[in-house]
C-alpha cells in the first residue's frame, strides 16, 4: 500500500470511529429518553388501574352495598 493511501485510510478510520461514537451516544440518549417516557407511561397505566380499583372499592364497600340494599 502506498504511503498516501495508508494515511487516507487511517484518517477515514478515525473519522468513522468518531462518527460511530457520536452515533452510539445519540442512540444512548434516545434510548434513555424512550425508557424514561415508557416508565412514565407505565406509571400512568398503574395510576389508571388504581383509579379503577378505587372506583370498584367505592361500589362494593359495605356502606355502599347497604345503601343500595336499603334503597326502595
Amino acid at each position, binding site marked *: 500500500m502506498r504511503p498516501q493511501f495508508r494515511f487516507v485510510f487511517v484518517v477515514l478510520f478515525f473519522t468513522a470511529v468518531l462518527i460511530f461514537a457520536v452515533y452510539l451516544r445519540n442512540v444512548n440518549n434516545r434510548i*434513555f429518553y424512550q425508557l424514561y417516557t415508557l416508565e412514565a407511561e407505565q406509571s400512568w397505566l398503574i395510576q389508571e388501574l388504581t383509579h379503577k380499583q378505587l372506583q370498584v372499592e367505592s361500589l362494593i364497600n359495605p356502606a*355502599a352495598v347497604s345503601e343500595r340494599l336499603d334503597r326502595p
Partner: protein
Amino acid sequence: MNERSIRSIIILFLLLLVAFLSLAGRCFYLQHVRSEHYVDLCIKRYRGRLIKTPQRGVILDSGGRVLAASNRVRTIFAEPREIKDTLNTSVKLAPIVKMRATEIIRLIRESGNPGFVRIKVDATEAQCNAARKIYGIGVQSDWQRSYPTGCLTAHVVGFTSGDNRGLSGIELRYDEQLSGSAGKNIFLADAFRRPIQMRQQSSELTDGVGIILTIDSAIQQFARGELSEQYSSYEAESAIAIVVSAKTGAILAMVSLPEFNPDDIGSAEPDMLRNCAVAIQYEPGSVLKPIIAAIALDSGLVSRYEKIFCENGDYRGTGFGGIGEYSDHRFGDLTVREILIKSSNIGMAKIGQRLGKDKLYEGLRHFGFGQKVDVDLPGEAEGLLRRVGDWNGYSVTRIPFGQEISVTSIQLVRAFCVLASGGRSIRPYLVKAVVDSKGEIVRQRESSPDVGYIVKPEVAKWIVNDCMVGVVNERENGGTGWRAKLEKWQVFGKTGTAQLAGSDGRGYEPNAYVASFVAGAPAEDPEVVVLVSIYKPNTRLGKGYTGGRVASPVAARILEKTLKYLRVPERSL
C-alpha cells in the same frame, strides 16, 4: 518589494498580532475570570432537575379493603399573569373542560394566586392535550387522595389537606410515615429539554408506608347503620359506637355521629369533624358501677354475699349531702350483685365509702381512667379524675355511681375489656400493621402479653357472668338492660344514664342526658365488647332517654350482627 509594501506587511502583521492577542486575552477572560458565570449558564442550559413527589401510603381495613389511597390525576390550570384576554381564553377552554366560560372567568378573576388557578382536576388525556394548546393554560399531574368508603370510616381514617398533609385521624397521626420522601434527580437535557442522561440522584423516591387497621368495614357498617337509625330517631346531638375484640383489644369498629365525607370536606361543619369516641369526655353515670364493684371485691373490703342496706332510697349524712335512687326506687338490703342489677346509687355510695378515697382513686387509675388510652388517634381527651387531695366529702360517694368523674368512651371500653378478659390488662388499638411500599411488614402489633392483672380473674369473671349477665337477663329482678337480651348468645352489660353538667359549671343541664350501654358476648368466653353512647336524645319526643331504652337495643343489634359475622358459636339451648 518596495519600502511601502514592507511597511504595509509589517502593519498587517502587527494588526494580526493585536487581533490574536485580543482573542487570547478574551479567551483568558472567559476561561479564568468569568469561568464560573459561564459554567453556571451552561449547566442551566443542559441540566434538568426533576422532583418526583411520593405516593401517599394506603390505609386498609383488617380485611384489606381500601379506606384511603392516593392516585395521580391530571389537573388543568390557568396562569392568570400570562393571560391577556381572560374572556377569549375562557371561551376557548370551556368546551374542552365542559364548564361554563363564566365559571372559568370567575375562577381566574377571584384567585389570589397569579401563577396558578386550578380549573379542572382529573381531566382526561384528550382534554389535557387540547388545553395545552391554549396560551396561559397548563397541565400538571397531582396526587389526589380518595376515600372509597366515604363517611363509613371518616373519623378513624381522617382526611388530608389540598397539599396532601394529614389533618385528622390516622392521616394526621401517621402523616410522616404515610407521606414518604420525594426523589430529586438531575438530568442532562437536550435542546428540547428532554432528559437524555441521568446526571445525579440527590435523593431517592420513597413512597409512603401502608397502614393496616384493626377496623373491619363490615362490622363498622353494622355499627354505623344501627347507630344512625337511633341517632335520627331520637334527634340526638351526637352518638358513639365502639366494637372491640375482648381478647386482644383490637378495635373492630368506631363510629362517631354526626359524620362527614372526607371526599367533600368543604361541606362539613366543625362539629362533624370531631371524633366523639376519643375527644368527648362526660360523666359516665351507672356504667361505671361494675368497675367500682370489681375494685371493691378485689380489695377484699366487700364480699360477694354480704347485704348492704340501701337506706330505702334516702341516704343522708354529714359531708356528703343526700343521695337518692333513680326513679325514686326504695331498696333495702341488697348484695353487690343486686346493687348492680338494680343499679342502686346508694349501694354504690356505701361501697365507695368502704373503699375510701385512696383505694378508689388507685383502682380507677389502674383501670385507665384519667389518662389517655393512646389508640393511635390525635385529639384524645384524658378524662377527668381529680387527685385525691382535691376530692371533697361528696367525691367518695358520687364517683362510684359515675358522677364527679369524666371519662371518654374509649376509656370505658378499655375498662370493660379488662373485665371481659378476666381482669387482664388490655389496651385498645387501631393499627394492626405497617407495611412498606413493597408490601413488606415494617411493624406489626404484637398481641398483649398475658401479664399485669388489674383485678383477680375470679372477681372479673364473677362481675361479668353473675352481675352483668343479670343486668341483661333478669328483667323480673329489675335488670335495666333487658332490651339487649339475645336468644343465641348470652349477653352481659350495664346501662348508664348520666346528666350533662351545666355550661356554667354548676349543677346539671335540664333534660340533657347521655344514654349509654356497654355490653359483651358470649358471657362464658367474651369475644367482643360493644359500647353505645347517645348524647342528648331529644326528651321532648317522649320516647325516653335512659341507657336501657335508647342505647341497649342498638348495642344488642350490633352484637347480634357482629357475632354472626364472626361466626361465634351459638349457645346450646
